């Protein structure tokens, strides 16, 4: 079996308005290089934007930055977004009753649900030292 080639790109972005676009644009370029189709590139970009703005709004990170690591393999693109903030309780990550929330046009609190909708796999590790969200998009 041929050995998988693994390439990594790491980006540190400051917590500042519109900096999520830097992470999204980088993801877009990488996904294009990997020959992802246009809709999948949009999905990746939206997932990364939602993850970053979630960290910007809620992490209260003292170092005021978010680290984004892009791991490219032959089969998929893995995105790892880490902040060193306060973390969040896992009760907030519950995937609850989206239809009812949509019916009521609930305005906020959709970020994680959108991320899960856009990506193939999502894993959340959060504690009082920070949060890492790992997301995977498989090549079709």
């Amino acid at each position: 079996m041929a050995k998988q080639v693994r390439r990594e790109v790491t980006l540190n972005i400051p917590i500042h308005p519109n900096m999520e676009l830097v992470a999204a644009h980088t993801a877009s370029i990488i996904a294009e290089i990997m020959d992802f189709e246009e809709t999948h590139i949009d999905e990746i970009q939206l997932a990364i934007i939602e993850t970053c703005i979630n960290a910007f709004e809620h992490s209260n990170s003292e170092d005021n930055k978010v680290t984004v690591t892009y791991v490219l393999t032959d089969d998929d693109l893995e995105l790892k977004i880490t902040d060193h903030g306060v973390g969040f309780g896992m009760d907030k990550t519950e995937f609850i009753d989206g239809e009812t929330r949509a019916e009521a046009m609930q305005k906020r609190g959709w970020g994680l649900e959108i991320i899960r909708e856009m990506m193939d796999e999502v894993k959340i590790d959060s504690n009082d030292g920070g949060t890492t969200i790992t997301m995977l998009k498989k090549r079709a």
Partner: protein
Amino acid sequence: MATSFSVNTRTEDGYAVIQTDGYLNGPTAEKLAETAKDLMNQGYSTLVINLEKTRLVNSIGISILIEIIEFLQEHGGMLHFCHLTPVIERTFKMMGLAQHAEIHPDEASATTNL
């Protein structure tokens, strides 16, 4: 990817069209909401938002679009969207916008029968 954002408006008999250009997030969606309210105050209660030049809308931007829908509904108006990318359309449906606003493939179909 540009970070600039602009809105252009056009008024027709009985409706107005707002064309966005750029990323829709909190601040830019607020700008769009102000434009929509100005048009409402001028008597246009049926609005078409053309997102042909907008490729990314984040959840904060969508929450403000929901506020525009609520504002229009309170005043007997209606909001129509056109030229959504598949991802934007999916997100709108997920967050419930599609139940309270009309989604059309293009401006011609959005404005037919208005």
